[in-house]
Each structure stands twice: as C-alpha cells, then as structure tokens.
C-alpha cells in the first residue's frame, strides 16, 4: 500500500479524495441543494447497498471462475451453467424440505460433483490445450443449458427466503431529517445483508486458506508454475480436481443466493457467465482479491448506473472494462 502511494502519488491522492467523497455521501445528511441536484439520499443509499450486495453475489460466482483459471488456465465458459444448476438444485431442495441452509449444502455438493466429473472426464484429457478446453466448455454450456431447459422448463423460479431473514432491518445511516428534527434511518432487507456478510466471510476464508495453509501454498505454487510443482512430487491432478470441485461448488452456492434475491430462468447462466467474465477482466485473471475488487466495482456501477443513467447502465460496465483494458490490460490487481 505504502509502495503504491510512493510510486503513484497523484493516483493515490485521487483515490483518497474519491473515498472521502464517497464516505461523506454515505454518512452525512445531505444539504437540500444536493438533494435537488441528484435526487433523494434514500435512493442513492439503496443503490449503493444494492450494488455492494450484488457485488457479493458476483464475487461468489467470479471467485470460483478465477480460481479455476488461475490454476488450470482453463476458461470455464460453462461456469454460468454450474451457477444455474446450483440454483435449480437449491430451489428443488428448499421447496422439498423447507430448509434454506440445507439447500446451500446440497447445491454445493452436487455442483462440486459435476465439477469433479468435468475435470476427470473432460479437461484431464486435453491438458495444456487452452483453446480446445475453452471450446469444449462452450459446447458443454450449450448442452447443459438445453438439458436444464428440458428438465425445468422456461419458468421463473425464486428460492423461498426463510422466515427469520424476511423483513427489513434499520441501519444507523440517516437518510433524511424530518421537519420535526427527527432523523430517518435507512431500512434495508435483512437477507441481502446476511448474504453479503456470508460472501465476505467466504472471501476472507479463501484468502486465509490460500495464504496461510499448506494446501493454499500448493495452489499458489501451481498458479506460478505447475510443472515444477508436479516435479516436486505433489499429486497435481488431485489438486486440480479439488480446486475444480471447490470452484464449481462456489458457483452452485452463488446459484442459490442468486435464486433467493433475484430469480432463476434460462438465460441467467449467460448473464452470470458474462458478469464473471467482466469482473475477472477488470480485477485481474486468477486473483482472488482482484475478483473481490472487480465484483464490487461492477456491482456498484450496475446499480448506480441503473438508478442515475437507466438507458446506458450496461454501457457504464462496459466502459469500465474498456478503460481497464486500455490502462492496465492484465487487470487491476493481477501481478503479471
């Protein structure tokens, strides 16, 4: 951090000012002039919170994608299908048993199993042929999409939110002050906050596992040079299977999350595949912190964009990607 400040003082200054402005916008009571210029503070705060929680969902999808890419150089374009598959499994389990938490576990296990099968049957046979693997994943995503359309039809499904998470929660953030001088606090859906907290926990746990454990050390070594790692006697195929299973399982969990606060339908697979593509392009391929930063930026841009410039929301996301590619083609937080 301090090295970054020393190297790029101008950028650091801009970043600090931007953060300060953002904090002020979130915490301060807006003066009437500002409210007239860009609308009510409640709208802004809702958009920010929606963006951050959407970023949490994007992070869940994209982190598995970027982990698989980082280790195996495999752009798994069937990742969106795994997301949708997890969502459908979660929906089936939660309607059958009524348990929301159980649906997460089953979705994780089943999508991880699909991931293991994919790695063992398909990707192991064409190791090192990046482009061919990518083509195969495109073919798989078409097949999966059609199979799921066959099994689940074209309807919209929504995973039932459990009772203990329904309803808004009051946050200590003032959106406005009534004429009587009484402050009005922001009310926000509980379930989104819980899911966001869970994705933060998963992200931190992943970071700790990668940086503080022996398995994490093996995976990081594999990202840097998998041939040398294999030569040192690590059973790399086992590591590959494990990472693929975990990445796929994360996509499955994300599917349940997405099914809870949005909905599941054919086409969502492509939407989330693209979201994770953009997130990892912005954040940097193969980097977990990069996926977190990218997910936050894209989630915020999408939500703020859809509130303030509704016609061009998608273009904002795209412009961010173009800008990153133009300035830093390897992504914001990638090392190479």
């Amino acid at each position, binding site marked *: 951090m301090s090295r970054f400040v020393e190297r790029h003082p101008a950028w650091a200054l801009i970043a600090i000012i931007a953060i300060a402005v953002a904090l002020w916008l979130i915490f301060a009571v807006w003066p009437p002039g500002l409210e007239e210029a860009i609308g009510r503070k409640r709208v802004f705060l809702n958009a920010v919170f929606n963006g951050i929680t959407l970023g949490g969902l994007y992070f869940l999808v994209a982190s598995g994608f970027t982990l698989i890419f980082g280790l195996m150089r495999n752009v798994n374009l069937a990742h969106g299908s795994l997301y949708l598959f997890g969502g459908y499994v979660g929906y089936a389990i939660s309607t059958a048993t009524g348990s929301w938490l159980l649906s997460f576990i089953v979705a994780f296990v089943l999508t991880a199993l699909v991931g293991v099968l994919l790695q063992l049957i398909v990707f192991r046979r064409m190791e090192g042929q990046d482009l061919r693997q*990518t083509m195969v994943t495109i073919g798989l995503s078409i097949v999966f999409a059609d199979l799921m359309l066959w099994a689940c039809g074209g309807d919209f499904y929504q995973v039932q939110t459990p009772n203990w998470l329904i309803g808004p929660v009051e946050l200590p953030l003032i959106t406005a002050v009534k004429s009587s001088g009484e402050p009005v606090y922001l009310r926000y859906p509980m379930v989104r906050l819980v899911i966001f907290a869970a994705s933060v926990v998963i992200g931190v746990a992943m970071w700790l596992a990668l940086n503080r454990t022996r398995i994490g050390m093996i995976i990081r070594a594999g990202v840097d040079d998998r041939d040398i790692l294999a030569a040192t006697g690590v059973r790399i195929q086992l590591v590959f299977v494990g990472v693929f299973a975990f990445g796929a399982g994360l996509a499955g969990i994300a599917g349940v999350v997405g099914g809870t606060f949005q909905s599941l339908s054919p086409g969502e697979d*492509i939407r989330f595949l693209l979201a994770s593509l953009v997130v990892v392009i912005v954040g940097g391929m193969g980097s977990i912190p990069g996926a977190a930063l990218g997910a936050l930026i894209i989630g915020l841009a999408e939500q703020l964009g859809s509130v303030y410039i509704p016609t061009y929301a998608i273009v904002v996301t795209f412009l961010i990607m173009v800008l990153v590619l133009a300035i830093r083609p390897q992504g914001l937080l990638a090392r190479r």
Partner: protein
Amino acid sequence: MSLTHDARLAVRPAAVAQRPVRTWPEINNPAAWIVAAILVVMPLVANGFFLIEIFATTLILGIMALSLMFLAGYGGMVSLMQLTIAGFSAYMVAVFGVSGNANISLGWPWWLAVPMALALATAFGTLGGALAVRTEGIYTIMITLAIGAAFYYFTNQNWAIFNGHTGINTVATPHFWGVNWRADIPFYYVVLAVAALCYFAVEYLSRAPFGLALQGVRDNPRRMAALGFNVNAHRVAAYAFASFIAALAGVLQVWNYRQISPGSVSVGACIDVLIIAVVGGITRPIGPFIGALIFVLLRTFALDFLVRLGLDGNRFRLLIGLGFLAIVFWSSDGVIGLWQRWRQGQRSRDGRQGEGRGHG
C-alpha cells in the same frame, strides 16, 4: 516403419513438382468446379424455400464464419464479436436506409446507406480489434464475448437509435435496373457473388505478403517482432479486413430478413458463428461454408427428424451442442480435418503427417 518413411519421402517431391507455381488451388481441382457449377445453376432446380432459407442463409452465415476463420485460422485470434459487427452493419443499413420505423431511419438511398454501414461497421470492428489485440489467446475470446454481450444489452436498452427490443422492421431492399433484388433468384445471385468474392479475397490474402506475415505473427509473434514486423498493426489490420467481410454479411442478412432486432445479435448467436467455423474447420476458407451448411440443415430439419425418431423436437440445440462437442473432441480441424484424415487413412494406414496445427 522405415518403409512408410521412405514412401513419404518419395511422395513429397512429386507433390511439390506437380505445382511448381503457386496459383489458385481451385483451378486444378475438379470438385471445386463441380461445386461452383452446381451453385450457379441452383435456381433452375431449387424452389424459393431451398434457395433462400437453405442456400442463401448458409452463404450469409458462411461469410460471417469466414471472417472468424480468417482471424482464427491465419491470425490465431478467436473473436466472438464477428456476429456483433455484422449486426452493427445490419442496424446501420436499417438506420440510414429506409424502413418501417420512419422516426429512426434517415431514409437514405441504399447506395449511400450501404457504404456508410460498411464503413461504420468496419471502424467498429477495428476499434474492438484494437482493444482485443492487447490480450492473447483465451483472453481474446473473453473480451470479444464481452463486447458482443455489451452490444446486445445496449441494443436492448437504447430506443433512440436501435429501437429497443422490438428492433427495426420492414427494412427496404434495393430496386434498380427494373429488378427487385430481394426477389428469390436475384437475391440468391447477389449473395453467391458476395460469398465468392469474400472467399477468393480471403484465399488471395492468405497467400499475399500480408497474409503470410499474419501467419508468421500467429506462429511466433516474438520472432516476427524481431524481424521488424509490427505485430499489433498486422493484427489490427486483420481485424479490419475481417470486420469488412462480417459487415458485408450483415448487409445481406438485413436484406434477407428485412428486419433486425437484438435477438439477432444475442450472445447465443455469437457463439453459433464460432460453432459454425469450428465445425467446418478453421484452417481453410471453405470450412466455414461447410459448417454453415451443416448448421442450417440441422436447424431447419432437426425438428422433423427428431419428431420422426419419436423424440422431442425442441432438443435441436442439444443436438448442435453434442455435435460440436464431438467435433472438438475428435478432430482439431472440424469436418475438413475428419475428411482429410479419412483420405490419409485410405492412402496409408498410419499416415498422420500434415495433421495440422491445433486451433489458433
């Protein structure tokens, strides 16, 4: 083993001696003449449905896939935005030309609208290419896919130019010299002429100095850079050429359907173009047309075929996906690769020479 080795040595100089001067490979190939003759006399035999729905559609999709084949086969860049460029060009024809949406279309005559559309689409594709060449290999796929998706969502959301998800309908088609060029037979010949032009342009360019340098860049960019070639300039130029071809296909497409909507530039359609090129084979320009023919035949007849087998006719995409998977699994060069391997298998049992490099 040594026997076959010797035989191979003996065969090779003979093959070289047959063609001392590099000329158009089609001239000495009777199959090419037969195909050309069949295509030219097609309107005498086929009815309007086959002429337009099968052959003209095949040729249009083939031209789009040809632009991808040029990039992927000679440049080593798999771009998923070729359909997006074609769609952009189609939209521009509809916007500048005459259409049912009078509040959007500017009403220019076709001979002004088409060059404008071609120029804008080529510029669009070149810009996208300039962005994509900053990355390599699988990254290129992702970035071009993201560009394609962004365009799709943009057309869905933008009402001022692209008229949102309804798109632009009843686009006018050219009438001149007393001919309605959208009538079945004239349109078929227009499409055939453009397809032939694009095919031979790619064929020619692949052997011109630029094409050879591009193939050098594909095989070893560092060495080409060391030899003094501007690697990125060659790649961007390849994108520009491919964009122009895709733009031509886009113009034909909008004349064919007389309408354009976001559905035609969806992500699935972008991937279809890749499937067509890969199934046909991306090492030779004829591949995309073969792939397009297979794709169109499947798309048109798979429903009846599946129903006749007692299966659900809606599983057409499953069939396409499985076929694509099979091709990617067993042949690195699509149907052409299978055919060549089969012919080599006929000639010598273990003749695996000239197996062809992998994708890009």
